[in-house]
């Protein structure tokens, strides 16, 4: 309970190299207690982990984006009632109960953050990456979005309007990136493969071809 770590890491720690030695043990002890008390079923924990490691992730969001790019009627539904439109493709549930999709255009660039904690649209993007949950991103995205984007490799024209979405409620935001120039003849499936997690947070563009790197 009173354990404190003396790492003083201002940057996210690389947990593979520097495992907090007692966290693993404390979790093990806690789980065994809760199993013994009949409060959790270890098989249920295994299933949850399997779900968030392998079933729920940014490929879900990418399929939503690609479908919106090829189907104007779907795109209209997505921008009007995102929760229902996303559910049409089978994605729903915890941390995606109330979805709003915001569209990037040549004139408007959207960026999503949660300054107060780490709110993130799980059903379409999976669990958030460390940088999204980190103090540097959470503190600066609202006061210096252009600097944040520049640092992440995305330079915006002064004329582009930047809209930052701070996720202060249970509404979750997904960015609909611009469809890349040159992708006109691509299939929906091929388009989906171009869409990155970072583009749907709003810190990258979708580029074509993919070999050019989206970030």
């Amino acid at each position, binding site marked *: *309970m009173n354990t404190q770590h003396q790492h003083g890491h201002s*940057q*996210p720690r690389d*947990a*593979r190299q520097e495992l*907090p030695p007692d*966290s*693993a043990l404390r*979790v093990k002890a*806690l789980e065994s*207690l*809760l199993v*013994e*008390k*009949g*409060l*959790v*079923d270890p*098989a*249920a*924990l295994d*299933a*949850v*982990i399997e779900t*968030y*490691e392998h079933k729920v992730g940014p490929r879900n969001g990418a399929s939503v984006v690609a479908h919106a790019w090829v189907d104007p009627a779907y795109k209209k539904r997505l921008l009007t009632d995102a929760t229902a439109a996303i559910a049409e493709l089978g994605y*729903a*549930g915890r*941390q995606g*109960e*109330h979805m*709003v999709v915001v569209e990037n255009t040549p004139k408007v660039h959207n960026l999503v953050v949660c*300054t*107060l904690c780490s709110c993130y649209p799980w059903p379409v993007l*999976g*669990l958030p990456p*460390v*940088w999204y949950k*980190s*103090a*540097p991103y*959470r*503190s*600066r995205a*609202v*006061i210096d979005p*252009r600097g*944040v984007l520049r640092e*992440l490799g995305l330079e915006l024209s*002064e*004329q582009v309007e*930047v*809209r930052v*979405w*701070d996720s*202060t*409620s*249970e*509404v979750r935001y997904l960015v609909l990136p611009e469809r890349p120039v040159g992708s006109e003849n691509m299939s929906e499936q091929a388009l989906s493969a171009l869409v990155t997690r970072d583009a749907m947070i709003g810190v990258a563009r979708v580029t074509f071809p993919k070999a050019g790197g989206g*970030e």
Partner: protein
Amino acid sequence: MNGVHDMGGMHGMGPIAREEDEPTFHAPWEARVLALNLAMAAWGKWNIDAGRHQIELIPGDQYLRMSYYEKWLTRLIELIARAGLATPAEIETGHPVPGSGKASPLSAEGLAALLAKGSPATRDVTVAARFEAGDRVRAKNINPVGHTRLPRYARGKLGTVERDHGVHVFPDTRAHLLGDNPQHLYSVRFAARELWGDQASPHDSVYLDLWDDHLEPV
């Protein structure tokens, strides 16, 4: 509360470290912490707002030092003890006290169904909206010692209601188990210059979701 968790607009937190091909979890215990949090929440002894507030209560120096899942572990232990689902002594030793009862946990199917369904924050009750799209509003200057979803950087600032999200539970009371207090939630646009002054671009804006109780008419 005016804690370090309320980070919007702070300087000095360093560069953004993005990891290529980041794994979902960096260690197996992180995955267990996530799953334990989700499974224990199913007992209904706390809600998502109380869970968030429990993380905010981590002392600031520790909050900044801890990784995300260390915070989730600390929060879970506090919630379990506060709810009486296990005693501090049991948590300390990792063993139930002799003679304590045994519950029946949610099955894998039950938990999966719960997560797939989610927990909507909307409430199907009729509550009058105080504002509508286009209204000019001011975010209240409040400094509660408890939970609030109105960040410091927007307090006292002028904005415009862009959209009514409908009737949502109010985290500021719900986090303290003081009731859902359902009311209208709005997307409110604040010009970047209203929030940050002339250093900000005249084209930019920040959108926050704020509730009726956070806003006053202009």
